[in-house]
């Protein structure tokens, strides 16, 4: 038998994404998942909202994950070239939606960040949405309504039209809470990003 001609090793191909399906609740929700910061943390904000489908119906089997900087705009991560931030800040939240499509996390507002191309990114939270019917995760961002100047200068928001930009800014609710609905499809569709 003759061996095939030698070829330079090809880089391994990416493993494709597949849907999280309807039964991820067996494994993915954690009791402390929604607590980016412990309950009772000074300055903690509850961000909540609904995930809605193209018919405006709640999505009761979605998983929402959040990732963000700490209040000083730092990450506890070796790839932050400014040095790792405050130890113990998890930065990560995970919450499945309930039968009404509702999710919530308890967090603190992140600091602004230097943008890769120069300028400053306004405080924001990166969001992943997983669900049955989503063959890949959806990525969006939450911006803060009390940061109008920073939001106006944000290079990511600046590339969007005013109407679409509004879909990424949370709205103020009662008692300092924030609301952020995620519309998967339709007239009020949230802006989703290609990473």
């Amino acid at each position, binding site marked *: 038998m003759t061996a095939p001609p030698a070829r330079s090793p090809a880089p391994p191909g990416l493993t494709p994404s597949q849907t*999280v399906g309807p039964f991820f609740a067996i494994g993915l929700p954690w009791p402390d998942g929604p607590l980016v910061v412990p309950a009772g943390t000074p300055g903690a904000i509850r961000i909540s909202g609904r995930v809605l489908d193209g018919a405006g119906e709640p999505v009761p089997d979605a998983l929402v994950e959040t990732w963000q900087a700490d209040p000083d705009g730092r990450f506890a991560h070796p790839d932050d070239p400014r040095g790792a931030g405050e130890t113990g800040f998890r930065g990560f939240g995970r919450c499945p939606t309930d039968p009404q499509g509702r999710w919530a996390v308890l967090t603190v507002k992140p600091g602004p960040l230097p943008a890769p191309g120069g300028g400053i990114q306004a405080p924001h939270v990166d969001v992943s949405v997983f669900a049955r019917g989503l063959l890949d995760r959806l990525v969006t961002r939450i911006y803060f309504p009390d940061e109008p100047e920073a939001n106006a200068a944000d290079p990511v928001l600046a590339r969007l039209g005013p109407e679409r930009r509004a879909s990424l800014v949370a709205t103020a609710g009662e008692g300092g809470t924030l609301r952020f609905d995620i519309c998967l499809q339709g007239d009020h569709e949230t802006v989703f990003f290609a990473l």
Partner: protein
Amino acid sequence: MSEPQPSTSAGPAAAGLVLPAYRRDDGRAHPPLDFPDYRSTRLRAPGRPLVLLSHGLTEVTGPLLGEGRVGETDHDLTVHHPGQPQGERIVVTGRVVDGDGRPVAGTLVEIWQANAAGRYRHDGDRHPAPLDPNFTGLGRCLSDAAGRYRFVTVKPGAYPWKNHHNAWRPAHIHFSLFGRAFTQRLVTQMYFPGDPLFAYDPIFNSVPDHARQRMVARFDLDTTVPELALGYRWDIVLRGRDATPLDQEDDQ
């Protein structure tokens, strides 16, 4: 030959902010969001094109969720109850690497699956196959320094679903991985070799043809445990990144 170009996320305008540059999937591995054969996409896939997001600090970092998340026996789904689960015992091993073949060490791997009869321990699963009192179907582990992971479980059964007439999912194990950056987050499914249901499954076939086999484990006699469990190997490839342009700085 053209000059090496600094990546956009680490150019001089970044004022010293040198970030790893994760290569984008050129659309050749991941399935499209809009895939009508999979009925649930119809009201859930976004209608508008995705907006390209350049990678900043939030995207090149990510949660590094450590040991506190993983119990000593979380990798062995067959020991979580007083008795042994029904079904064919298997060992699933592999490496988590990036697109350049570098190991992704210390990353949290979470799995969930149906039991050997094809039934999930979930209120929403109406398939009238038996639940197994000795099987939950949840596992977790951290990859080691070489990116290796290992689970002991039972082979999940195929099961029917409502997507179309006589629709059955091929046997699969769900995998969730974080990698080391938000850009590397991946949720996927591992399939078993030679499954006759592949040709009929819109979720499997949503992936471009050339990349489908990447989701299929291979039987492996080396990791098969005599008298106990069949071995399956499955490597998982997360996004690769270009070398940081530190070398280029010397040339400037």
